[in-house]
């Protein structure tokens, strides 16, 4: 995004979010240069209601877009990813058109009338399901965050990204609707020796992962709807897996096959990829849980504070290990912290919004957030993570504290590794 665009969109988002940028001018009582005029929208009818239509955002919100990764650029766009504009997300739900994407061989266009889901392997009776079958089962809806294990991989030790969309945009909040995987597996009858479950996609990568049966039976969903409508093609239409709190890669999209076995498969995506480098040359495998994390989305990188005075620090916190218990914020680079206000609802493995008032004096500041989850785990700094893991190359599972530096002009910059 060009610098001018960024300034522009910040002005627009300032209007949207009201008080945050209003600053000191609001306190004065000076007369305007000209009195308020009646706007033309008061004096002519608006658009009619179309007979049928799918609503789209205001043309003035056209800058709020999912964006393909442009910090780490891939040389093709089939195995690639796009990122959620978290700086514009006011709540804990990401609109369907803005949910991040990660595909390994493009988005397939699957006809739900011919799509089939099969459960087989170590089961009493292999089963085939149509989409009509799946939607007839007793349904459940649950709110969960969804995060790619690669979220933040470009920004471990020095700033490569400008915006929070680039640093943290492989994250979305979704209301998923579907059938518990346990319901369908129960019907097929799991062999007592079964311990692992394979999920496989109908896409051109036939993407697949091994998942321990315990997690599948506990809270895994076979999902056909998101945020009140059918899955979007890029998010797995017509049916996908959702494994709450775990790295997004295991929540296989375009699900066609479920197989039960007594051992994991050790696929490419759970050996050569999605494993974590350790200092002794080893790799941590099956590191599935997305650990407790938070980020300030406003003010965040690429934005500019217009005036000293009141600003609300806003952000999101989440944990794959449970609920968010607390979020602390610092405006002095981590020397002192105070507890932010958490906004209800606070749900298990779900985005939680936090807010803290801030009186910006107009000088340099470094903003940070630090989340604590219901297990008592405290979000670490990158320096703390580095004591345990090798941060070398394409490293996943970055849940380190993100600093944003504000200068005297109010410009907000990514300060990872510098604060």
């Amino acid at each position, binding site marked *: 995004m060009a610098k001018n665009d960024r300034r522009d969109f910040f002005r627009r988002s300032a209007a949207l979010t009201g008080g945050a940028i209003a600053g000191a001018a609001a306190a004065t009582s000076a007369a305007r240069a000209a009195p308020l005029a009646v706007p033309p929208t008061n004096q002519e009818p608006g658009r009619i209601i179309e007979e049928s239509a799918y609503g789209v955002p205001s043309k003035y919100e056209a800058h709020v877009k999912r964006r393909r990764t442009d910090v780490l650029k891939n040389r093709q766009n089939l195995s690639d990813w796009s990122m959620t504009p978290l700086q514009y997300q006011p709540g804990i739900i990401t609109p369907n058109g803005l949910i991040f994407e990660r595909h390994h061989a493009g988005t397939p266009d699957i006809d739900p009338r011919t799509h089939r889901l099969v459960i087989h392997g170590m089961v009493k009776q292999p*089963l085939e399901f149509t989409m009509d079958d799946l939607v007839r089962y007793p349904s459940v809806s649950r709110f969960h965050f969804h995060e790619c294990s690669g979220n933040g991989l470009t920004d471990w030790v020095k700033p490569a990204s400008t915006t929070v969309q680039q640093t943290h945009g492989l994250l979305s909040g979704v209301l998923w609707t579907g059938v518990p995987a346990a319901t369908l597996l129960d019907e097929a009858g799991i062999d007592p020796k079964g311990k692992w479950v394979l999920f496989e996609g109908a896409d051109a990568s*036939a993407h697949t992962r091994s998942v321990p049966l315990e997690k599948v039976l506990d809270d895994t969903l076979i999902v056909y709807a998101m945020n009140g409508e059918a899955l979007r093609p890029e998010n797995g239409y017509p049916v996908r897996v959702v494994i709450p709190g775990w790295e997004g890669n295991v929540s296989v999209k375009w699900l066609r096959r479920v197989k039960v076995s007594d051992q994991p498969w050790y696929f490419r995506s759970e050996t050569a990829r999605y494993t974590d480098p350790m200092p002794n040359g080893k790799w941590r495998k099956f590191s599935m849980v997305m650990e407790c994390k938070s980020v300030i989305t406003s003010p965040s990188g690429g934005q500019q504070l217009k005036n000293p005075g009141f600003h609300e620090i806003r952000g999101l916190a989440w944990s794959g290990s449970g609920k968010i218990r607390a979020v602390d914020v610092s405006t002095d680079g981590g020397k002192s912290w105070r507890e932010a206000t958490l906004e209800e609802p606070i749900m298990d493995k779900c985005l939680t919004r936090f807010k803290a008032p801030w009186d910006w004096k107009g000088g340099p500041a470094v903003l940070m957030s630090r989340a604590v989850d219901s297990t008592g785990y405290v979000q670490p700094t990158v320096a703390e993570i580095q004591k345990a893991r090798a941060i070398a190359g394409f490293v996943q599972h970055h849940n380190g504290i993100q600093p944003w530096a504000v200068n005297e002009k109010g410009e907000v910059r990514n300060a990872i590794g510098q604060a």
Partner: protein
Amino acid sequence: MPSAKPSLAFAAAALALWGCAQMGTGSGGMAAKSADGIPLGTSSPHPVQPLPDKPRLGHAISEADVAAWNIDVRTSDGQGLPPGRGSVAEGREVYAAKCVACHGADAKGGAVYGTMVGGIGSFTTNARVLTPGSMYPYAPILFDYIRRAMPMDKPQTLTANEVYALSAYLLQLNGLVPADAVMDASSLPKVQMPNRDGFILDDRPDTKSVRCMSDCK
């Protein structure tokens, strides 16, 4: 949830023995680790539909009817590898016809992807080079992945012989099999990969941050 750790083994055993018979109670809480020691995280109790409402809507299907979809290989021992065979020399030809455009000559990287050779011994340096040779713990991962996903413009079109041949060629380029090697369901799982013992179980949390509020470091 109830204090999770002591009840874990019990919960896991119960699930394994009774299948899903216990699902639907929503009694909540789950094992912190799977039977194989994989950390699972924690789980709050969540509502599950009562059992009597569960319809049985699946249609019985035979394993034979799933055969064309049943492409997974258990890579640690090669279970699921199909009949067929392919040599290094044959693999070189298939590679030249169907792979070189993206992966480059001798699999050293091309227009679209980086190298698929080398990197063995690089994992104790900060310049880790991830290739099938350096990274895969088991050679049948080559067969599984190539068959399901390659070539990118036409996946699942290669014959089993072609996939075995490509596996042989890539292993040879990585110095892991000789130039006259032939790969099949018997020989491929026997190739010793240098990273075979290169993995550890997830031992997170691996940080112990404290919630300092003032005068922090």
